[in-house]
């Protein structure tokens, strides 16, 4: 009997932006350093997921209130002593990761079978098979998987497949101090997330929403889903991703018709000549 499908629930409402997930991931998986770039993007100097970054913590400074939070700041000459005049401010943090889609485009388009679905329902690259064709990279609707410079192969989060095999949880989830990253049986996580969402809504954090939790979405639901406090695109996530291979049958049909058209066209060019 295969084990239950495992997943991540990342509750960004309790992420403190410590980036321990990024470091633990790199330590465990021997992911190389990704460049010393001062980006000016708040405290995010990682910038995004890639071959050398499998967990990425986004930092978003916004002139919006976080529920009933009092930020205490006053800008543009506002009088700080006037509660009405003070500036709204919130600082969102979110640890992004491979979504381990139910319908995974990267896995679908991989021509070598290097990408495969594990017994835990996760999507993993076999580094000894990948020949670096790069097809999975533009196929991913989330911009997760990428090619490693100087290595040529595609790399991404494995949900610590090796740890799962020995009954341990992924490094990022284990190190997360506030349990913003939760690992477990996907169905359980979805239940927990729904409860947390209700709790936040009751606490006045009406911006809270789940992302990637719905099995009826364009990728059949994510194995790694999120509780966000803003539109997904604010975090660099696509608002309505659809696995590209949903359209593949249509594409093949069009391609077949086109091929026939070409053959007919060539034939026609001779038919007229024979007249």
């Amino acid at each position, binding site marked *: 009997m295969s084990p239950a499908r495992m997943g991540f629930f990342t509750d960004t409402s*309790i992420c*403190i*932006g*410590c*980036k*321990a997930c*990024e*470091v633990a991931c*790199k*330590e465990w998986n021997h992911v190389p*350093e*990704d*460049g*010393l*770039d*001062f980006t*000016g993007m*708040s*405290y995010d*100097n*990682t910038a995004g997921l890639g071959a050398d970054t499998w967990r990425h913590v986004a930092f978003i*400074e916004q*002139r919006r209130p*976080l529920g*009933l*939070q*009092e*930020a*205490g*700041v*006053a*800008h*543009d*000459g506002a*009088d*700080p*002593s*006037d*509660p009405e005049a*003070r*500036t709204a*401010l*919130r*600082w*969102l*943090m979110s640890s992004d990761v491979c979504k381990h889609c139910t319908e995974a485009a990267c896995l679908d388009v991989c021509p070598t079978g290097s990408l495969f679905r594990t017994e835990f329902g996760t999507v993993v690259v076999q580094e000894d098979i990948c020949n670096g064709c790069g097809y999975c990279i533009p196929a991913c609707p989330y911009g997760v998987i990428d090619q490693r410079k100087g290595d040529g192969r595609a790399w991404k989060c494995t949900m610590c497949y090796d740890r799962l095999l020995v009954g341990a949880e992924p490094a990022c989830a284990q190190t997360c*101090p*506030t*349990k913003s990253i939760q690992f477990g049986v996907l169905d359980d996580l979805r239940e927990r997330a729904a409860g947390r969402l209700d*709790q936040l809504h009751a606490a006045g954090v009406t911006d809270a929403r789940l992302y990637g939790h719905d099995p009826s979405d364009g990728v059949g639901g994510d194995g790694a889903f999120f509780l966000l406090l803003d539109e997904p695109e604010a975090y660099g996530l696509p608002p309505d991703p659809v696995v590209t291979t949903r359209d593949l049958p249509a594409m093949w049909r069009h391609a077949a018709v086109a091929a026939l058209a070409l053959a007919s066209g060539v034939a026609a060019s001779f038919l007229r000549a024979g007249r």
Partner: protein
Amino acid sequence: MAECHPVGFQWVMEAKSRGATVIHVDPRFTRTSALADMHVPLRAGTDIAFLGGIVNHVIQNERYFRDYLVAYTNAATIINENFADTEDLDGVFSGLDRENRKYDFHTWMYEGMEVQAASGSRDQEYQDRTGNGSSVSEAARGESHGSGGAAIGGEPETDPDLLHTRCVFQILKRHYARYTPEMVEEICGVPRDLFLRVCEALTANSGRDRTSAFVYSVGWTQHTVGVQYIRTAAILQLLLGNIGRPGGGIMALRGHASIQGSTDIPTLFNLLPGYIPMPHAHEHEDLDGFVQGEAPDKGFWAEMKSYTVSLLKAWFGPAARPDNDFCFDYLPRLTGSHSTYETVMAQMEGRCKGYFIVGENPAVGSANARMQRLGMANLDWLVVRDFSLIESATWWKDGPEIETGELRTGDIATEVFFFPAAAHTEKNGSFTNTQRMLQWHHAATEPDGDARSDLWFYFHLGRIIREKLAGSTDPMDRPVLDVTWDYPTEGPVDEPSADAILAEINGRDAEGRPLASYEQLRDDGSTTCGCWIYCGVYADGVNQAARRKPGGQQNWVANEWGWAWPANRRILYNRASADPDGRPWSEAKALVWWDPDQGRWTGHDIPDFSADKEPSYSPPDGARGAAALAGADPFVMQADGKGWLFVPAGLTDGPLPAHYEPQDSPFPNALYRQQRNPVRQVFSRRHNRYQPSGDEPGSDVFPYVTTTYRLTEHHTAGGMSRWLPYLSELQPEMFCEVSPELATERGLEHMGWATIVTARSAIEARVLVTERMTPLRVQGRTLHQIGLPYHWGPNGYSAGDAANELASISLDPNVHIQEVKAFSADIRPGRRPRGPALTALVEEYQRRAGITEKTGTEV
């Protein structure tokens, strides 16, 4: 806390999810603020005004926990009539000796009782208590006040109605009456509505059924009035009844793992293990004189002789005998303050010739980093033990002074030894956290190459020195030859057994059996104990610190995880969690209570009280030690068993906290004519110039307030993080944080460069313009603050200028900590000049501000 203690912050998040209100008071909107219910920005360096304002609010609105206050604090105690407050003397207390920058504390005493402090400057009273000569450095004070002093012992006069004009409560009330919400707004820049919301949240959540906790870090300590910051919080928590109770307290978050451990078994110059004071250099002082001078007669500190003798027995073994005062004379003697900064001064003056730097990087991490390097450049030898070639090990070839031409490598005579150090994963040992809890860690792997643990280094250094001295008849060598140095070693590199050392710290009885409690310690030499407060950590011959029983398998206090001093109690002074009759104040907050049937204290935690002392116990006349405290005196280390709102002894800078401006401040003190802490330590030196403050001419040359801090991604001065690619890439460059308004005012561009200038130096940083930095309204004008992380230095994988180049050496007089959390500065766009032009820029600023060797040194 989320920034520097993310692991501990999980419990704040847990509390928040259970309904706790989280308030974050900080000049910057940080990762902690992001998760808090309320962020209260304030001007760095004004927390006493803020907290004092809350104290005033609590008193004026009678929001204190009266029953607790009257029974458990010294609120009712009457102070002698010679005491004069800052209210009377416009900002200073009675007893100020302006010439010598010292307070004589005698006028702060209780009426009718002399008390000795449980910590702090206990040698203050040596002369009074022994009639002998005082410490060399303290001689001046002793002479000026004669030998009169207050009577030793006795009972203090009290007024349980708290109405006597000289009772602590009334003094407190008068002292803080001027700390109004308006004054808080004026000084701190905290809007009144925010301030009152904090007051309301705190007082509504304190009392019989609820408790609130304070958490602080070096943002409170690193000031010229740092100790008094914490004192203000202590006053507030005592008023609200939040000490000794679950969910209450004041948590000091430490800068490193086991900083608590390194004060318990100290690396500090003025303490012996377990907070026994280091003896001062008094003439003809023997062990009894020492104990008489430094220890109180009541409470557990009255047994100081047992603790000291057991320590000497642990250190000198059979050589410590009653007839030689247990080798008390082997202990070094203090001749004054020998803090790290005074050591630097001594280096520059050529009096300190050799220096060990272990797990520290003063060339980056200490205030006025240049002074640190100039001091080291004047040494004969320097030993650095660290993971990497930190700046403190390489300043002589590539430090900033080489670049400016102030030092030339060829001229530096210091011989520098670098020893690679093992990491905590490569050695056994314990960490002691802020909850005083020891947790054992086991080596996971052998250290690489020549890297060795500190334990290995010092054990073998001692072994080799002892071998070289073997057979010496010189009495000077006796302490080294007599010291017990027989630790078993193990493994391929002869690593001393950390377990054996823990057993020695725990102590043994006359038969060599492990002790279980410090109450077993004796002053006759029959017991040994390396640190009396740790006695019991090896009870039953078991390493109690290595216990890891999961929380789910024990009660919520979890006493079976690790081991906490004293006696594995998790909440200190927890007798205060029950009312004077021994019943919990409320069911919700029950922790320990008196069980009349058993005739014992019992509860969830281990009672921090004599187990069978009834609540109604009243000490007989002449009682001493713990027996001299009543059954309703929870603060068992204190000589009067009370929590001290007012501190009659032990502090060098006043019995009550008063707001003073930082050493370098762009604002005058709005509360008193006294601008700064009158007894702060200042060191006017060529490379340590202070800046004009307040209304002084030239103050406007440095119009902004700067604060330094850490980021989650790096560790302190960078020795453990800047060499690691995985951490360096997360925060790759030194930067400064400024508001959009300051950026506009000074022409700073996001991601561009800025130069920050003080009278000491100028550094450059990348600019992060962010609305998390907010302008404040202070004393009628807009104040901008500059945030500077202090992790960077010129070496390492991620390098940059060090913020501590900018800070002055100006110290808190109690604990000699530097003021780096608030100082004024200027900021300008662009990179800093290189080479001698850098020195010229700083000199130009000094000229413009009219800075002389006298600037900022006034009392």
